[in-house]
């Protein structure tokens, strides 16, 4: 089956924008901050990365710039939400709109231009397997993304830093009483989230579909936010959720490859429809949310 091996080999790359952004948001939410500005941070990261790479500075510099741009925008969000104690929802929306506006402004003269993507690296032997072999032929960012997933899982689960982040998210008052700098930890977690969103945007605009178009993030930042809920704030589940969405967003291409004549607008809506359905399924399980949820998510800390 052409379709299956096509989806298997492509889904990891398609999943990366979701995965990277969602991992960052997971860390921020674990520290108790809900950042609704992800879409804008991805858009700003995307245009920053694209412009840098377009002018020939290479992918490494491009991704660095994209990460810094995302982090800078999230710093503004953190200042509003954490220092000025603005409503986190409103602050997130404001920063998101601002970021999308900035990306459109900076990207204006690059509309519809393209850059070269990244070469694929093969894992020896595994890449020669039938059907699934394609899964082991991926660009470097995919491999690094998987490594980052493992690293974030390990840090949150097994290190003191992870414990502090989780404590700050669960009970900031107690964490402060223990001497941890709640606001500083939250600042760092939010900026990590912004950094990851910037990288996710850069991947979307310079590797996955190496082309700039205004609005190209197309809701992927919002799906990343939903993914954190799907994963019930756990890294492993989030990873598989992101892969699922990678596969779903490939459905359009796979259907065309197999000559299936499904309506293209319906196929383009598929990731959004799946998001709504899965969100309903997971959220209705209140026990699961309560057990894994973050106790003081979205609550400003007023020492």
């Amino acid at each position, binding site marked *: 089956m052409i379709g299956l091996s096509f989806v298997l080999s492509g889904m990891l790359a398609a999943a990366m924008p979701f995965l990277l952004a969602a991992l960052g948001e997971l860390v921020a939410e674990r520290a108790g901050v809900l950042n609704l500005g992800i879409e804008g941070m991805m858009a700003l990261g995307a245009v920053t990365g694209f412009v840098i790479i377009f002018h020939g500075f290479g992918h490494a510099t491009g991704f660095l710039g994209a990460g810094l741009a995302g982090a800078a925008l999230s710093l503004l969000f953190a200042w509003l939400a954490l220092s000025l104690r603005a409503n986190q929802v409103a602050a997130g929306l404001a920063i998101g709109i601002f970021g999308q506006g900035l990306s459109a402004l900076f990207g*204006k003269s690059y509309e519809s231009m393209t850059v070269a993507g990244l070469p694929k690296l093969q894992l020896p032997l595994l890449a020669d397997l039938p059907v699934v072999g394609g899964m082991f032929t991926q660009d470097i960012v995919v491999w690094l993304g998987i490594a980052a997933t493992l690293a974030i899982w390990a840090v949150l689960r097994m290190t003191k830093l992870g414990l502090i982040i989780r404590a700050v998210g669960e009970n900031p008052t107690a964490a402060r009483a223990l001497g941890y700098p709640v606001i500083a930890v939250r600042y760092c977690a939010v900026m990590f989230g912004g950094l990851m969103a910037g990288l996710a945007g850069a991947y979307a605009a310079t590797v996955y579909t190496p082309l700039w178009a205004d609005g190209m993030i197309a809701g992927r930042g919002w799906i990343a936010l939903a993914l954190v809920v799907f994963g019930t704030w756990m890294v492993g589940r989030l990873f598989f959720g992101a892969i699922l969405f990678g596969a779903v967003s490939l459905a359009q291409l796979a259907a065309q490859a197999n000559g299936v004549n499904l*309506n293209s607008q319906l196929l383009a809506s598929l990731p959004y429809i799946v998001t709504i359905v899965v*969100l309903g399924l997971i959220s209705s399980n209140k026990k699961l949310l309560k057990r894994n949820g973050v106790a003081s998510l979205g609550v400003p800390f007023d020492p």
Partner: protein
Amino acid sequence: MNLAGYRLARRDKASRKLAVVAPVVALLLSIALNFALYMAMGKNPVAVFQAMLIEPVISWPAFSEVLLKMTPLLLIAQGLAAGFRAKVINIGAEGQFILGAIFASAVPVWFPQISGLWVWPLMIVLGGIGGMLWAVVPAIWRVRLNASEILVTLMMSLIAAQLLNFLLVGPWKDPMGFNFPQSVIFPLDATLPLILPGTRVNVALAIALIWSVACWVYLQRSFQGYQLMVGGLAPQAAGYAGYSQSRAVWMSLLIGGLAAGLAGASEVAGPVGQLQRSIASGYGYSAIIVAYLGGLHPVGIVFSSLLIAILYIGGDNAMVSAGLPVAAVRVFQGSLLVCYLAAITLVRYRVIREPKGIRA
């Protein structure tokens, strides 16, 4: 927070005076920020602001266009603010707007020869229904399935955009339209009557103003509006008093959907005059800014919708006269909300200078 010896202390009572001053401060602050941005872009900031903020209000033809632009923003933002007060965050007005436009367009698309004075009111009503129907899904999802209305309303907007595309390239495409993705041009009776001679301002502005009064009465003067507000401010207290959270969710989303649907209908039946892709131009998202900037208050929102409408028309001016990209307007709008959120901190908090030595 403890920055350079200053910290924030919660006020016993929010300052009403500052609540009015904050949006003005936010406007001045964003003008200053964007002034720097335009300089960096090599534009003449004075000329840009002249075109953007002054020209739209000093001539009647330009100002009438501002009133036209203000209409959908005012309608949608009033509806959203009711929900935001109840902490029901509907960010999917864009989708509800599109559905309103689609529902209203069904009449002239299916009956291109239709005539009669009842046609446009029917379209407006259908638009309202369309917007509400699109808000039913997030309402059910929130009430029955406990799913975040923020994410569901946004997803519904993205789906609505695809639905609009589908109709325009498929069944609703104008057969005589040279293959452009747009519907037939509506017959005269399927367009809104103009109310100000010599301008494009139509009856929708009157509807939006009546809607604003209705929202003011509902929110400030009715018991249900009070329940909605208490439910947002103190959900537990509202629960003890027997107010139902589910009803607040339903009311908020339906009001928001209705408002956006009305706006969508009045846009296709108003200045646009046919269903086309460009109707989904982000009013639903800008209305979020309008709602917050107006302090979620029906009176404030009249002023904030006027301001954002000026920015739209002024942005078009600046594009022509000063070569400013359209995206700069989005940046200005975004920065306005950012500055506003920073400024309203002072409504709820005082800045206190920390004496030396006892810094935490």
